[in-house]
């Protein structure tokens, strides 16, 4: 049990890297698409809806395979400089995870934007605050604060999602556990130890979000 710990921990580092980078890109994507979703133009609106519908309606594994195996099939992508990125499983995983979590994040933020009381915006308008400042100073902070609990869940879902990276040859925590299982034929030790590490990470994320919620939580 102790002998497999170092290799599992090195896998956990990869898992955390994958998680951090996909959450970062996912947040940016989610924010953009949430803004597109509340746009009044039906075409922009529908486009953003289609994006989130596709990524929320299909399994993450399909998205990962589509990007890892599928994109390599397109001739001009293979000849362009994108090939440097999409030939690496690591970047494919980050692209797939970012797009996936981006879709969920956009839904979380959209519902947060839509539940902001109209009175706040009207008050800002009557005070002569410009639309841009209303958005950045009033709508956005409230939306972020309101979506904290749901976003915390999304981080944990994504942490679990990163385990799929192991099926496209990335040696993350799950990949290391699989390797240990194959080398030692001790599935219980390998997977239960990995499970404990996953639970530990979940526990830490959960508590950080709880702390942030307490500190910045928004009461209406």
């Amino acid at each position, binding site marked *: 049990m102790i002998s497999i710990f170092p290799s599992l921990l090195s896998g956990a580092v990869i898992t955390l890297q994958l998680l951090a980078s996909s959450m970062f890109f996912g947040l940016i994507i989610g924010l953009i698409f949430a803004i597109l979703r509340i746009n009044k133009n039906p075409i922009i609106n529908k486009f953003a809806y289609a994006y989130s*519908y*596709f990524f929320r*309606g*299909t*399994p*993450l*594994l*399909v*998205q990962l*395979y*589509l990007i890892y*195996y*599928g*994109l*390599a*099939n*397109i001739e001009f992508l293979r000849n362009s400089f994108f090939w440097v990125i999409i030939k690496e499983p690591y970047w494919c995983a980050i692209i797939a995870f970012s797009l996936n979590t981006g879709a969920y994040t956009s839904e979380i933020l959209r519902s947060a934007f839509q539940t902001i009381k109209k009175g706040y915006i009207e008050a800002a308008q009557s005070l002569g605050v410009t639309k841009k400042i209303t958005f950045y100073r009033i709508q956005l902070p409230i939306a972020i604060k309101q979506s904290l609990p749901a976003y915390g869940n999304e981080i*944990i879902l994504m*942490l*679990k*999602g*990163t*385990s*799929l990276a*192991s*099926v496209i040859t990335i040696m993350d925590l*799950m990949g290391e*556990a*699989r390797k240990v*299982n194959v080398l030692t*034929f001790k*599935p*219980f030790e390998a*997977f*239960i130890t*990995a*499970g404990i590490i*996953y*639970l530990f990470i*979940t*526990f830490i994320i959960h508590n950080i979000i709880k702390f942030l919620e307490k500190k910045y939580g928004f009461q209406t």
Partner: protein
Amino acid sequence: MELLSFGDTGWGDELFFATLMTIAVSITAMAIGFLFALIFTPLKLSKIKTLNIIGNCYTTIIRGVPELLIIYLLFFGGTGAAMYVASIFGYDGYIELNAFITGALAIGIISGAYSTEVFRGAILSIDKGQFEASKVLGIKKSIQFYKIILPQMLRLSIPNLSNVWQITLKDTSLISVTGLVEIMRQSYIAAGSTRDPLFFYSIAAVLYLILTYLSMNLINKLEIKYSKGY
């Protein structure tokens, strides 16, 4: 398009049966999840501390650990355990567990954890007065549960159970790693032998979208039907 034709030359019939397999696994897993939820929801709501801890451990651990890990644990661990048990009875050959049963069980355990949370929320949102009223009327606890609480709990949980169903349906794609031929596995095989992964994984994505779309519509209809009069 001829890649999708039915018969020996195309993958249409294979993908069709794979879709049926996905539906079958999802429904089985959802049913197993229901059983788990019906066992663990009372534990989570129990006033006895030990039972409470058992219930909480189940939902916390299962929801905090990757789905893939539970599938691997059951698949590899299950094989090992089955062989160990068999070796006690003097059988030393290799035993392979049925991929359908282990897969459905693994996804069922996961979906059960989510269903437990849904049921718990539903029971907590039932008005306290109803428990008190039935107590005053001298209704037995078991009858109170089956005739008063359970029907309302099910009605209240329909919207959230539709989320659990979606999660379960998408999780079944993970069983493909154990070799069960469902949509994902079939597309993997087809993509491998035709060297056209883009096409077949797109088909897989479309099939999943159709499944989620149809089931959402069905559940919405159920929700409207059962919320009549409220």
